[in-house]
């Protein structure tokens, strides 16, 4: 079971990150752009990070994935806004980087 889940999560995280970055540079248009961005910002970073938490309950995993994702995105976005450096491209790169690194480190650690 674990052998099938890990590549699936990795694929979802990497695929979503790539799609979100494509949205950022304008390679994806309507109607897919908004759902992809909302999915990536609202779920994926938390999904990548929560594997390190040891939580197994599916409902808890889903809840944590959303909460961690939006909190991380909000903090990163306001940090840049306060510094007058707000840049959506930089933010998406940061979130994609965090997601990818968290997921790859998890895979490597196991």
């Amino acid at each position: 079971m674990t052998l099938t889940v890990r590549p699936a999560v990795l694929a979802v995280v990497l695929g979503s990150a790539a799609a979100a970055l494509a949205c950022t540079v304008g390679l994806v248009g309507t109607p897919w752009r908004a759902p992809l961005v909302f999915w990536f910002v609202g779920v994926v970073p938390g999904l990548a990070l929560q594997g390190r938490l040891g939580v197994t309950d599916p409902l808890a995993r889903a809840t944590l994935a959303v909460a961690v994702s939006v909190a991380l995105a909000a903090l990163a976005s306001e940090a840049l806004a306060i510094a007058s450096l707000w840049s959506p491209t930089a933010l998406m790169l940061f979130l994609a980087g965090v997601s990818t690194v968290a997921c790859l480190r998890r895979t490597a650690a196991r």
Partner: protein
Amino acid sequence: MTGKQAQGASLTTPGPPASALPPRAVVDARTRSRHRVLPLLGQLLPLGLALALWLSSLRRVDLRGMSDLGLLSVLPLTYGAALGLVIGTLAVLIHQGSTRPVVLVAYFVLLIAILHATPAILYDSLRYAWAWKHVGVVDFILRHHAVAPRMDSPFSAYQSWPGFFALNALLVKVSGLGSALSYAAWAPPVVELLALGPLKLLFSTLARDTRQVWLALLVFYLGNWVGQDYFSPQAFAYLLYLVCLVVCLRWLPATRAGTPLPRWRRWMGETLPGQASGAPVRRRELLAVVLLLAGGIVTSHQLTPFMLVAALCVLCLGRHTGPAWLPVVVGVMTVAWVAFMATTFLRDNLYWIIASIGQLGQNTQTGFVDLSHATLDQKLVSYASRALTALVGLCAVAGWFRLRHTRQPYRVAGLLAATPVSLLAANSYGGEMIFRVYLFALPFLALLAAGLVYPRTRRRGSATVIAALAITMSMLFCAAYYGRERANYFTPEEVAASTWLYAHAPSRAMLVGATADFPWAWTHYETYDYTFLEDLSPTERRDMVRSPIPVLGEAVTGRQGPVYVVLTRSQVDSVRYTGVLPDGAVAAIGAALEHAPGYHVVYQNRDAVIFASTQPPPGGSRS
């Protein structure tokens, strides 16, 4: 072997082909399958029927026909039938105790859709004037790529706690939507759906009986009439707050036995049914998650961090969560943020914040509307909200005693329900504290109220009683939640007037409204000054009907640039509901301005009129 294990085994272990089995075994398998499928279909049939009834009820709704009962007055009977069917079936399914969670979740999704997606589907504009302001702050970040916490503006609080707005600015920009108006109307159903997970986990942690958990969810959704689920920092921070409590209660029990208050610990020393036994494997990472979520709360909303600190203190004192430094760290984060980011906000608001400390009675009273001039329908709406609050509170108190009597967990839920009340002594929160206290206490009140019914031995007729009580709650909810829709809903004409205003009013113009209840500040908000006649002194407000022009002149005195006075239908209804201005004040202002020298109508439709004090300079607009 359980059903699930049997199912799993059939997936992993190839069994003999059906032809190789004896005929009786095949028949038994088919019978078992039929026995599983038929009840499931029976459970889902009311769901499908309710969905069909709800969708059909949305076809013919005349929003202009709304009375002072709000949306409730124009929704057809099929809407009530759909709601009643969902709630009645949910009561029965919860009472059965063996219903699959996925079926119950499906019912809750439909319940949330019926209660909270209906306005989003029916209205062609964003509900609530406050939500339009919030869209404006997102617009500010999109245009300036920054926030301005030191800027003097009516929104210094939003600029000082910008987390929610910065998140939405990111979403809007990258998704190419142009404005948060594209999706903000859908915030209530989305927020309520997102709350389902943390609430279920929270209740499962604090209660043993799954029926109590599901019933508590029903009570929560039917009792949550305060409308804090719209596009707002409060809704965002509330979700994070719930998840914070889940993580702390479920996976972060205190590891050290010592406590500064041993007696308190002994009294509080109940075992939480859903708390992970022993230290979690990834405790440090989970603590990091709590601090991350707390960071999101502290930087997004003024009030929620204090609610979180209070709840964490209670939990740490009872050793239900740890480490003990957690509330201290969150408290320091809160104070540090206020000290460094909110200086402008504090400068403008510190006087009333300090003045309201300790004024328990005043802080409680300021949120209530004066009903002396209200119509019968408005009184019904107001009494419905009070009755619903009282019903939830009374059931919770009775449930507390019953849980105590039956030796079920009740102390932690009781304390977490009582903790927000302490903040009533600290602040009036602009007259809203009583509603926020109810919002933060509601999950625990709902859990205690559900304890009035469960756990208990199976009694015949209990499901009927629960269904009747829940349907009564839903009627009160609809009156309380939808009762002020004449003021919360903006017609296409009002939105068109607002769009015209922001396209034509030059920068630094002063925008004047009878109240703030119209679509305002949703774009370029910082380039205008705002004055609302509802903020004038009581004497000036009393004089509004008799001599509106001198009062208006007083409001805009010393003003050099153009002044735009916006009067809308929603403001008229808002004045009637709240009584902030005398009866007929808005009409009197409009009539007086039509003949007043120096003012002329620059825009008019059937729901809004805009007067300008001077002709806008050519080329000065942003259209």
